[in-house]
């Protein structure tokens, strides 16, 4: 009973945080430097790890597909399999998980530290709402950067798959055949649906991480506990929401 109450309180406070942050949306043009800084942190600094991981995920996907399909003589469909899998599922989920680990944890640590050391209280007494200064620029930045990161992850993953298909002896599928199959079966809607998913995941991750950070109480030890909680809750939510968003989009 207590846990259910705690979950409901968490959902309620996160929704409240979203609504309060959105009520300051008109101030966003004045906060352009904060928005750009957050775009840099969420997008640019996450890009290398997104590139490396998506390349290898695309490669492994092609390798596994080639291994499984070699007995059925349907190697030409590897391109469509890698294309669809990355665009609809693996791309957005992987980017969301990376953003949680790379950015979400940092957001929670920063906000929890600000809360514990009374910086948030100082903002409130200065009549600078934390939702306006600390939450809104992060939400706007993640809304812009998640689709961009997802598209980049998809493209890098697709090329990773193409390389494996070309240079793996038992597959030996030319890039032309690989991409022809991909283009034939992977439509713009598939990529767009993936971007929608990534958008939802990104916003939820940032909201959850901000909310847990801003509700941290106690001393420095609680900062670590908040980061752990934020990452765990975000990862669970990504996978749970993945099912429901997919169900809606299909």
């Amino acid at each position: 009973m207590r846990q259910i109450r705690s979950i409901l309180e968490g959902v309620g406070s996160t929704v409240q945080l979203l609504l309060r942050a959105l009520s300051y949306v008109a101030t966003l043009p004045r906060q352009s430097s904060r928005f750009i800084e957050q775009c840099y942190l969420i997008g640019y600094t996450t890009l290398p790890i997104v590139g490396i991981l998506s390349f290898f995920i695309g490669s492994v996907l092609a390798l596994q597909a080639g291994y499984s399909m070699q007995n059925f003589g349907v190697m030409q469909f590897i391109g469509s399999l890698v294309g669809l899998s990355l665009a609809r599922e693996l791309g957005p989920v992987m980017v969301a998980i990376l953003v949680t680990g790379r950015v979400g944890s940092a957001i929670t640590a920063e906000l929890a530290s600000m809360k514990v050391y009374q910086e948030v209280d100082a903002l409130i007494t200065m009549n600078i709402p934390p939702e306006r200064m600390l939450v809104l620029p992060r939400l706007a930045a993640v809304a812009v950067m998640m689709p961009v990161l997802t598209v980049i992850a998809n493209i890098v993953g697709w090329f990773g798959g193409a390389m494996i298909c070309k240079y793996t002896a038992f597959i030996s599928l030319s890039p032309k055949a690989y991409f022809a199959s991909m283009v034939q079966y992977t439509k713009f809607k598939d990529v767009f649906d993936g971007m929608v998913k990534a958008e939802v995941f990104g916003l939820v991750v940032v909201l959850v991480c901000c909310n847990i950070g801003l509700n941290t109480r106690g001393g420095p030890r609680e900062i670590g506990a908040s980061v752990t909680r934020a990452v765990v809750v975000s990862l669970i939510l990504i996978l749970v929401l993945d099912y429901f968003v997919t169900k809606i989009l299909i």
Partner: protein
Amino acid sequence: MASPASQPNPLPAAESPAVGVSVEALSKSYGKLDVFKDVTFAVEPGEIFVLMGPSGSGKSVLLRQVAGLETPTSGRVMIDGHDAGSAETREHVRRALVFQAGALFNSLSVYDNLALYPREHQMGTEDQIREKVMRALEILSLGKTAETFPSQLSGGMKKRVAIARALVMEPQLLLYDEPTSELDPVMSATIDEIIGSLRKEYHVTSVVVSHDCDLALSIADRVGFLMDGRLVHVGKPADLREPADPRIAEFLNPKIDVGNPRFKKIHTET
């Protein structure tokens, strides 16, 4: 060292008049722990009210209620006729709190810490803000620290930066939590002068939480004593010289008796 006396016009006068504070039957509990109970007092516009009391008596918690950072368990705090925690008060009353530990923004330089409020509230051009910030830093002898970060400052310097940040806000109500702790005697005297001159020249209402009896005697219009969760005394600073309440007398002039059993215990333990 710069002192307010040598800076006749440290900050431009606030456009809005001073505000009064009314604390009415205020009680605060955390779970079963009662921090204070049924506290009532009023601070007149432009008055300096010093709240004293032993550590753990709830002074800082009371100050947080006045700052609108916490909701009371019962009773209310009114500022200029509006609830201290209401959006109306936040919007219309410029209220600054000097936190005991400074509460500076660690990711911003000292200059940006001070410039944050005027920038967020669009209180002038960047040049005007720079002038205002540098003047506040000069008053507190912090001119050379503008580009440093809070992590590079000592505890006392952080406290001075926090006071400078409050000055830049041109507050109508200034709340101080132990403003002179961690400061040397000269800087403590400067802070006393600043609090006094803000009242004299700009009619700023001040609520000061402090253990510092000298500060209370030199600048307070009235002094309140919070003990065991109760406001046991409100009166003129002169009352502190010969307090009627023996608890206040003991707090202000503690008699150290090395023959007391508690000292013997410490001696045995060490």
